[in-house]
Structures are given as C-alpha cells and as structure tokens.
C-alpha cells in the first residue's frame, strides 16, 4: 500500500442514513439523506433526490443505505490517505428495521433485482468488516434532518447538540448575546425556551434527567447514539417504525399550534 503511515489519535466513524419516500410528487422519486460524523463532529452531509423511482419505502431506504455505504468506503479511503487511523468498522445507523435486518444478515430474500444489488453492496461491506449496520429510533436518526421538510419541534432534540449547542446566544441579554444585532432575536429566544421546556418535559417523561448546559450535550449525545441503538434482532417496536414519530402522551408537537409561531 502506498498510503502514509497512520499517526495520531484515531477516529470513530458514524454515519446516519434515511430516505423520504415519494418526496417528489411529480416524478415519484425519493430523497436520500446522509450525515457522516468523525468522533462526535459532523463532517459531511448529503441530501439528494434519488435517480430512480421506488415503489416502496423499503426500496428507497435500501438505496439510501447503499449510497451511504459507498460514501463511507470513500471516506475511509480518504482518511487513510490523510494518515488518520480509524477505529474498527464504521457505525452505520438507519431507522428502517427491515432494511437493517436484511442488510446485516446473509441470505435475505430480495424480490427485485435492483434492490437486491443495493442489498449486496451493503451486505458486502458488512461482511468485509467495513461497516457495522444497526437500527436507531426514527426520532434519533440525525439523517432525518437531511431527508425531509421538517418543522423545528420535530428535529430540535437532534439539531440542538449538533448545530445549536450554543443556543444561549439566541436568548437576549444572556451571557455572550450580541448587542445591537441586526436581526430580530426575541422570538427566537421565546421559541427556543418553549422548545426547551417541551424537551425537558419529554426527558422527564422518559425518566432521564439532564442538568447543566454541558451535561445536556453530553447526555443528549448518549441519548442520540449509544443508548438507542438496538441489536438487530430485538423485538420490533411498532412505534419506532419509520413514518410514526413517537411523542410522549398528549405531546404531539406537530399538532401544537404554538410551533407555527413565526412561520407565517
């Protein structure tokens, strides 16, 4: 091999993938969303209409898994040539249990040749030790942000640790907030605090306490990745199927009128 000798701290790679089936009503095509992380830093993202029409979510998710696998292989090669050591196989996380289950085990039955080929591509990478594919709950799947038109409440839990961990900047008069900013910030602050109140309610409902800002990031990180990954053969929880988002009792934020605030 002509790759440079790996030096320094090694990285753990994580990739999230998701597909939004029937995203385009005119062509019937789906959208693939992929987010790659090195350690806990997002480093690459991808969101694109698929080039073929899929008649089932299963098919479009498989294509997303394949695209993700190919990008992971590419990324691993890039890191190798940059001389960065990688920790084991890349963790690939998706929220469609059927896809994960069939991709992670040999001899799955596929009825369409093109889906079968996507399956083989992913399966090959699993067998070759390039990736580890696991299931993650739909509402923890970071690639959700990149595959559909979301509203803030439904992705806030995921986005906050990723992009808006400094959300305190949005609250006026808080430490570090800029004076005389050209953009009206007050309603952002309101929104953020409301979302946060909601978030806390949710967390308490699930029995997970989170305290200071910093541990919130840490905590939510564990929440987004480690603790939600289920082994592939775990019993299928109907609520975690794609398309049905789970919300605590009576807390369906999608129907909550206040999140519409400022959208009109």
């Amino acid at each position, binding site marked *: 091999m002509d790759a440079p000798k790996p030096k320094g701290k090694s990285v753990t790679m994580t990739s999230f993938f998701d597909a939004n089936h029937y995203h385009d009503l005119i062509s019937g095509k789906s959208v693939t*969303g992929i987010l790659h992380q090195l350690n806990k830093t997002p480093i690459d993202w991808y969101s694109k209409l698929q080039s073929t029409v899929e008649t089932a979510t299963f098919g479009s998710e498989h294509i997303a898994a394949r695209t993700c696998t190919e990008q992971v292989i590419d990324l691993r090669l890039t890191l190798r040539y940059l001389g960065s050591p990688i920790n084991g196989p890349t963790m690939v996380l998706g929220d469609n249990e059927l896809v994960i289950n069939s991709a992670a085990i*040999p001899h799955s039955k596929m009825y369409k040749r093109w889906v079968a080929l996507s399956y083989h591509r992913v399966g090959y990478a699993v067998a070759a030790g390039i990736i*580890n594919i696991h299931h993650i709950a739909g509402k923890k799947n970071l690639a959700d942000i*990149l595959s559909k038109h979301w*509203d803030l409440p439904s992705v806030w839990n995921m986005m906050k640790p990723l992009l808006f961990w400094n959300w305190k900047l949005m609250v006026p008069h808080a430490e570090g907030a800029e004076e005389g900013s050209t953009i009206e910030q007050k309603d952002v602050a309101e929104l953020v605090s409301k979302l946060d109140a909601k978030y806390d309610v949710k967390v308490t409902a699930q029995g997970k306490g989170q305290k200071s800002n910093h541990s919130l990031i840490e905590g939510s990180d564990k929440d987004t990745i480690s603790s939600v990954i289920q082994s592939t053969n775990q019993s299928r929880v109907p609520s975690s199927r794609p398309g049905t988002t789970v919300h605590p009792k009576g807390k369906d934020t999608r129907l909550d009128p206040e999140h519409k605030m400022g959208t009109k």
Partner: protein
Amino acid sequence: MKIWSTDIGNAYLETHTKEKVYIIAGPEFGYREGHVLIVSKALCGLHSSGLRWSERLADVLREMGYFTSKCEKYIWMRDKGDHCEHIAVHVDDLMIASKDPEAIVKILVEKYQFKLKGTGPTEFHLGCDFFSDEEGVLCYAPKKYIEKILENYRRIYGTWPKPATSPLTTGDHPELDTSELLNEDDQKIYQSLIGALQWVIQIGCFDIQTAVTTLSRFRAMPRQGHLDRVKRIHGYLSKMCHATIKIRTDAPDYSNIPVKMYDW
C-alpha cells in the same frame, strides 16, 4: 496541533507566463504610449494564470518536503515523525495544521519571499468563522457569511426576510407550484440566491440542505412560488443564524452494542 491560516498576497504575480502575452501601451503609460509591451508575469485574467500559480506553489511545497495526498491533491502532507503536517490549499489561501506552523510560515516568507497576509491561528477561512468556545474546543460557524447573504437579500428586496422556524413547511411540495414563471431578472436573482445558499450548506448549515436541493431543481425555470420559498429559507437563516459546528474529538461509546458474527 495548531491550525493556522494564511493568504498569499499578489499570488498571480509570483509566477511567469508561459505564453507570449503583449499589450499595446495606452495613454496611461505616458511617453511609452504606442509601444508594444511584453507581459512576463502571469497576470489575472489569463486562462492559464491559475494553473501557473498552482504549479509555482506546488514546486515550493515539494521543495519543502511536502507531497500531495493521493485522495485530495490540494492537501499537502509532510511526515514529522510523531505527527503528520497538513496544508490545505485553496488557490492562494492556505490552511496549515501543524505543531509548529510558525516555522512553515517563516520559510515561506524568508526563503520564498511570499507576501503573506492575515497569518495566524485561523479565524476566518473560506466564509467560515473559526473560534474556540469557553472550553477551548475549536468551532466553526458560517455566521459572517449568513450576515453577508442577508445583507445581500436586503439590498435586493429592501427589507429583511421574514423570520421562519423551518426552511420549508412540512409536507411542502414546490414541484406542484403553478404560480407564474419568473422573468429573466428574477430568474438571475433566484439562481444567485440558491448559489449562495449552497455555499452556506457546504460550510456548515446542513439544516437547510433538503430545502435548498429541492429548490435547486427549479433553477432553470423558477416560478414565483419557488422564489417565495427561497425567501423563506433566508428567513429561517436570519432566525437560526447561530448554527455552529463544534469539533468534538471525543469518541462516541459503542461498547454496549452487541457484535453479531455471521458466516457470510
């Protein structure tokens, strides 16, 4: 490891043309008016200027002991025993990752006589602000670039965009839009707004990627409704302008994930 940036001043004047380029002196040359002058340095504006410059820089870096990475030819590397130095080149902008960037900069200035500008720990690179948070973790945010495009928006439309809490409304289908087609001027505006948004995505705001890629498809034939949606994305950016990516180098913990071995 330190991350430094520097900008090479008058880059294109650092090298000589390969072609014979001449001009006929105009009145601004005083008594030499009417003379035929031969241009020896690769000025801006020639098709080959960029090439000449990159060749020159490549020669310099090669002489200093760097080699280009096989995966990314604009990333230069040098083995320093316990670590590997990297220099990322973007035309005349350099980003240096090294334990001793001072030494590199010194050689560039003293031996190769480059006029370096803005040398020091990276604060602003390719439209992105770099800074350390209170814990000393490196972060980057496209805040200045967002401010720039909002300013640009105001120059075009005379007002700030209306704040929104998501890039597009959930379940939005811009492909079904039947509003009237834009005239040529508005089309150009649409295209340049999309172009700017695509760069924001590249430098960190992946929260708007799905919306922008969906709208990018209409660049050739945008309708009024599509332009309104692009305006909405600007409104979202104005509200959520604090998006920041934190370079978190702690590895996620996957030790609790069961490893399944299959006989492939």
